[in-house]
């Protein structure tokens, strides 16, 4: 017997398992006619507050909406979101700092997706890890509150790079914290040229109309509502490793 050292080619994405699962989720969402939007941001930038208002408003407009919400330890966010009367499910990740496609899939068991027009997925508050995981969503929104500083995108370029749209939140506090809107917009364009940016305050409702119109345009482009042909899987989701 002798040993023979050699190099064996593997050539596989380390996150292949997640990506395969995300792709099948995207197909499932597509077939059910549900548009899926995920929210990513730092802890405390206002994801839950915005989502509660979003669910409430979209329900008023007649949309059938639901939300999955990721949290490390508590069910507080789900309790807050439930006030919107929309179906809400909490995913407690324990020590895991992000959601992955498997957690999303396992949470969908009791829901009939074809009864929904739009599903929101609120990720765990974290600007790093969620960027690596495709959840099968159609649109990824990154939130940044005015209290976080204008250069946040420069500190976390990857999360901005994997998102489709940026929201500047808590605009009602902009004056108080001397937020430099031009500098913030420049930071975003520097790490993701051409990125659409919306400004709003979920508290005062400033900018909420424009944001909701934006969402409705996205949700409305789905085949179930618009009667259009089914677009390519993942067609408007640019981040697939």
């Amino acid at each position, binding site marked *: *017997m002798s040993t023979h*050292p*050699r*190099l064996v080619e593997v050539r596989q994405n*380390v996150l292949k398992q997640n990506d395969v699962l995300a792709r099948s989720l995207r197909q499932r969402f597509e077939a059910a006619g549900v548009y899926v939007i995920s929210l990513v941001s730092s802890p405390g930038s206002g994801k839950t507050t915005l989502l509660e208002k979003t669910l409430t408003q979209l329900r008023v407009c007649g949309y059938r909406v639901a939300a999955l919400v990721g949290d490390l330890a508590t069910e507080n966010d789900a309790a807050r979101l439930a006030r919107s009367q929309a179906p809400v499910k909490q995913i407690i990740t324990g020590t895991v700092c992000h959601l992955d496609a498997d957690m999303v899939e396992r949470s969908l068991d009791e829901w009939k997706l074809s009864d929904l027009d739009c599903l929101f997925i609120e990720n765990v508050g974290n600007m790093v890890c969620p*960027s*690596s995981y495709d959840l099968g969503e159609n649109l990824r929104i990154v939130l940044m509150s005015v209290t976080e500083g204008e250069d946040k995108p*420069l500190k976390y370029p990857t999360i901005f790079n994997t998102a489709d749209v940026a929201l500047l939140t808590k605009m009602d506090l902009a004056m108080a914290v001397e937020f430099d809107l031009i500098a913030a917009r420049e930071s975003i364009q*520097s790490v993701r040229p051409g990125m659409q940016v919306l400004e709003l305050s979920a508290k005062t409702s400033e900018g909420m109309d424009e944001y909701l119109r934006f969402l409705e345009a996205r949700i409305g482009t789905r085949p179930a509502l618009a009667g259009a042909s089914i677009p390519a899987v993942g067609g408007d989701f640019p*981040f697939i490793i």
Partner: protein
Amino acid sequence: MHELSIALSMIEMATAEVERRGGAQVNALHLKLGPLSGVVKDALMFSYEVACQGTLLEGSQLVIEDVPVVIYCAECQAERELESIQRFCCPVCGELTADVVSGKELEFVAMEIEEREPAVAL
């Protein structure tokens, strides 16, 4: 800090490959890593060493090849290496661009193994 789960995934993939081959000693895993993968190199190196303990891969090396971020500049009609991921613009003409050609890699490229082979009968 999701590098530990990334390291565990790599170990799982390598172990499956070794088992498929009916056993081998693993000397090293080769990984291509881009800055836009969202994975921190040092944290991954550390996690890998910890995660390998008590597995088939204990004592193996993780060899990481850094992949640069390459963008396509429509103005120059050329691919260019980005100087900083804080600024997505062509290093030659300054044109802003979001057209990423590479830099998102998190690819398990190859593994160095030693397989036992029966001695050839004379």
